[in-house]
């Protein structure tokens, strides 16, 4: 009998897109019952991503990946009866998760004060982009833009060239990880002290908490890093170098004198490595652009895997820059089973990332594929809330279960 860390906990998930759904996905992987509340009036846009050419909401591969292990119900929250049903569900649940713009849950009549009135120990978590209070509280924007507001994007680009940015929903995923942790803290808190609480993960703040170096440097010296490329202030050799083939690169980083010596030997001790310009770490740092050119001349004669093998053998950090296909085929990742196939009734087989947390006694698991729309209406409204078949049918007819 497998035990899951979070079995027995019920989470109502109003999440859409990335931040909330990624958080509840991790908790569902570890055994929590996560009930995704969807509505035909406004489907999760992830059900219609760029890879879903069929426009069938059951056929989006990214949706399947993010929402595996979850249940789905349909409910129109703009309808008072819909809200009543959710309130009944809250009474028998432990956590409510949402990543709407601030104010939306209140408009539904489902803000924390309201939910606390129904169930005092309820735990609620919200993921506002910038926070519900303060001069920027009105700002509504997409996840990837938050990296711009937090200063992260300003540093992403080739050294002293234009800003390119992270070009992804980085802040959302970082917030999701902090959110999953926060929910667990609140559950643990409740087990010990019998009280629920309201948690907020302002996505900009959660991101900045993982960027202390430039924050502190600016506060001390007023420094403003521009686009920094792959430059490191601790390592002269610290870059992605071109290899044999099209668009093939290998990362190499050397921190110590010992690693530099091992590196030189491994590449055949060419005479250029003995010149004055590279005699110590400081000189190598000052002359790093020329040094990078020299190293590239060597890496261009090898594949990324060859470079990795040669250098790792002598204790030097080197890894290929792997794209999706590379990672799929990588022997280490294959042995570690980072990806796993899941059968889905609408798409056959999906390949999805495996559970991120590896626990030896209570590992998580992918127990069911992503849910189809409203797949668990009968279970939730019938079994959990005690509605009769006729009542459910009437709610469907009246487009409340919709």
């Amino acid at each position, binding site marked *: 009998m497998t035990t899951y860390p979070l079995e027995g906990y019920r989470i109502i998930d109003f999440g859409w897109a990335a931040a909330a759904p990624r958080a509840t996905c991790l908790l569902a992987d570890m055994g929590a019952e996560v009930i995704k509340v969807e509505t035909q009036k406004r489907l999760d846009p992830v059900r219609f991503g760029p890879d879903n050419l069929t426009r069938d909401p059951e056929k989006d591969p990214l949706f399947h990946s993010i929402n595996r292990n979850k249940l789905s119900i349909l409910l129109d929250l703009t309808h008072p009866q819909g809200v009543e049903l959710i309130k009944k569900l809250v009474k028998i649940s432990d956590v409510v998760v949402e990543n709407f713009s601030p104010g939306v849950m209140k408009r539904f009549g489902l803000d924390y004060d309201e939910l606390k009135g129904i169930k005092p120990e309820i735990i609620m978590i919200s993921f506002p982009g910038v926070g519900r209070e303060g001069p920027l509280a009105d700002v509504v924007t997409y996840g990837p833009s938050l990296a711009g507001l*937090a200063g992260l994007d300003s540093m992403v680009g080739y050294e002293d060239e234009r800003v390119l940015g992270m070009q992804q929903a980085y802040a959302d995923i970082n917030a999701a990880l902090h959110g999953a942790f926060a929910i667990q803290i609140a559950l643990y808190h409740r087990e010990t002290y019998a009280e629920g609480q309201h948690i907020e993960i302002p996505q900009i703040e959660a991101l900045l908490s993982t960027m202390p170096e430039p924050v502190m440097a600016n506060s001390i010296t007023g420094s403003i890093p521009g686009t920094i490329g792959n430059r490191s202030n601790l390592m002269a050799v610290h870059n992605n170098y071109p290899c044999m083939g099209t668009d093939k690169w290998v990362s190499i980083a050397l921190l110590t004198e010992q690693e530099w010596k091992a590196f030189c030997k491994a590449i055949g001790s060419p005479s250029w490595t003995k010149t004055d310009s590279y005699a110590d770490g400081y000189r190598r740092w000052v002359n790093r652009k020329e040094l990078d050119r020299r190293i590239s001349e060597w890496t261009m004669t090898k594949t990324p895997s060859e470079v990795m093998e040669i250098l790792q053998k002598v204790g030097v950090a080197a890894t290929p820059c*792997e794209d999706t296909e590379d990672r799929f085929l990588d022997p280490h990742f294959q042995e570690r089973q980072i*990806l796993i196939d899941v059968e889905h009734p609408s798409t056959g087989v999906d390949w999805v990332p495996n559970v991120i947390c590896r626990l030896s006694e209570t590992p998580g698991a992918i127990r069911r594929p992503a849910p189809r729309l409203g797949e668990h209406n009968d279970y939730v409204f019938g079994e959990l809330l005690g509605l009769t078949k006729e009542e459910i049918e009437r709610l469907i007819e009246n487009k409340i279960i919709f």
Partner: protein
Amino acid sequence: MHKTLEGIKVIELAQHISGPYAGMLLSGLGAQVTKVEEPGVGDISRRCGPFPDNKPHPDRSGLFIYLNRNKQGITLDVRKPTGRQILLDLLKDAHVLLEDLPPKVARKLKLDYGHLKKANPQLIVVSVTPFGQTGPYRDYKAYAINASAIGGMSSIIGEPKREPLTPPFSLGHFQTGIIAANAIMFALMARKRIGKGQHIDISEAESWAIFHTGNVVSSFVYSGRKRTRTGHRTPSPYPYTILPCKEGYLSMIALRGSEWKRFLEIVGNGNVPEWYSSDERFQDRLKAGQQYADILDNLLAPWLMSHTKEEIFTRCREEHVPFTPVRNMDEVVHCEHLNQRGYFEEIEYPGEKKFKCPGPPIRFSRSPWQMDKPAPSLSEHNDKVYCEGLGYSKEQLVQLRNMDVI
């Protein structure tokens, strides 16, 4: 208010960022975290800075202080059998060991999970490494740039045909830390049910390859689509891009046509500009994003280059357009919004000027976040932990120090 993790004892045998960030989160929420450092040398982050007045000092490194405030600090050389035994004694009444020994070293020192479990079956051991405890690369070395390379993050940042860009600073280490913190909580929750500890295997490469870039695998297998580097924009209906404006840059993502129309109306002073509405090529936004993005970037440039990012931001907020300025670190540290919210905290070292550091990533209404004790100086709590805690005499401590055990 009650400190949520009060009573939880964590021994942190980890350095730099990944392990210590997890330790920081637990410590801030009430756990007692004891940081174990190598005698004489200490945690590598003591050398990272930034330092007040740019004067390096092992107790004044910003990064070390940020991550290790509130923890108690002891020195111990676990490579020596005497040191190893002292660690096992410390673990007897600990709940969690957070460690980052290379798997080969842990086995050699007999500090792998099998041995630790014998010393304390209730112990939760979290091993944080670049590649994990198993697999052909488990003994490989990786700094942040290497983990993000193999994890797939770098291959999607930068311009096509040019070198992939690694995320700035230590984002990957922090992701590993928050994943480790999650795993510790899963194990603490599980402990209530199964009555024992377990081993947790955390890999930085997998923080990227599973959690950040793992989801695109489904798309790849489904439709063969691989994400590649596309410079300052992401493939999408136009716009999904970062464009230069006067004295800065603007992040422009409009997933809804209505949002884009409202922006164009700002540009055209109330109406969508003629040059846009009369051009067939731009009416299908997906096609425009795929084929005419460079042209559109150039057509928008004159207007963008005559307005600053903050001016544009103000107008966008008025008109409900979701575009935002790309701020630099100075603007962020002085951001009125963040400061009014009290987000930043201050690090104050006696005799030095205060400086700001980030505040907590999470706001709880009932679980207080408290960082009220300073970061430990090297070996600061040796007396407390070894004498008061384990019953060593002060003379014994001197002898242990003489022999480089502590």
